[in-house]
């Protein structure tokens, strides 16, 4: 997947642009990057990233990875997600990668890990079911 296609995919989502999300294609999947922006802060005194921004970032990651696998179809829709917050989101760059845990005909189960300094120290994790669009 070329960097241009990856950029187009992310840039087609206004909400992802608002968060400042960037994406790269590496190791056979999308690596999403959430640059540090003051507008993603939830607690300015700590400071810490907003739980909603981290959750939304991981949701975008899941939907972008599903879309990458079927670029001719519309975006999948989230049915239900579980988000675990594991560490404080520091005011630095955050990364996320989605793993399609189970691919079904209509629904896929996706797991997303978000980290900052090191991938083996996740700051948050999401697992959720996404409704796949029907091929026309």
């Amino acid at each position, binding site marked *: 997947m070329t960097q241009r296609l990856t950029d187009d995919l992310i840039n087609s*989502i206004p909400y992802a642009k608002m968060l400042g999300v960037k994406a790269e294609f590496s190791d056979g999947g999308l690596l999403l990057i959430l640059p540090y922006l003051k507008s*993603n802060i939830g*607690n*300015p*005194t*700590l400071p810490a990233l907003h739980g909603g921004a981290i959750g939304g970032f991981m949701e975008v990651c899941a939907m972008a990875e599903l879309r990458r696998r079927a670029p001719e179809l519309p975006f999948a*829709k989230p049915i239900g997600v*579980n988000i675990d917050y594991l560490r*404080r*989101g520091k005011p630095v760059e955050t990364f996320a990668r989605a793993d399609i845990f189970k691919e079904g005909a209509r629904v896929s189960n996706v797991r997303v890990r978000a980290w900052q300094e090191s991938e083996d120290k996740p700051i948050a994790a999401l697992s959720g079911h996404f409704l796949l669009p029907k091929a026309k």
Partner: protein
Amino acid sequence: MSAFIEKLWEIGPALVDGTPHARELGVKFVAIDKGLATLSLPYNVELIGDPRSRVIAGGAVTTVLDQSCGLAAIAGFDGFAQLATLSLRIDYQRSATPGKTIIAEAVCYKTTRHVAFIRATAHDGNPEDPVATAQAAFMLTGPLYKVTDDVTNTGKTEGQTT
């Protein structure tokens, strides 16, 4: 109304506006009571998650639900404190209607010494037909500053959530 709830009515809008990400999305304070908080998120094209349908992103709904749960937790703890989200479960019942304001209503139904349990609903006009429902757990990450009915000055007014 307790002095604490009265204080929350007074500073509720500032608590939301003082949260940069809530402010960025356009989240607004609506109402507060003991263990209850209501916020709104007006429709904005920048929040769109699916360009074909123009429906706002699940993540934007996640943020307003998270923020309302945090505020309900403060109202439930009955004091000002630093809080962190531990877990958040969101079920999306249907797509939000493009153009309509999202209302998030949160109920903190239980607090322990360190943890608050909250349920929340997001709808776009009819509470009987929710867009999403949420279940959250928040943890205190610092001391709890109580506001007693006879002492109005607490010294501290921290109440942001992450």
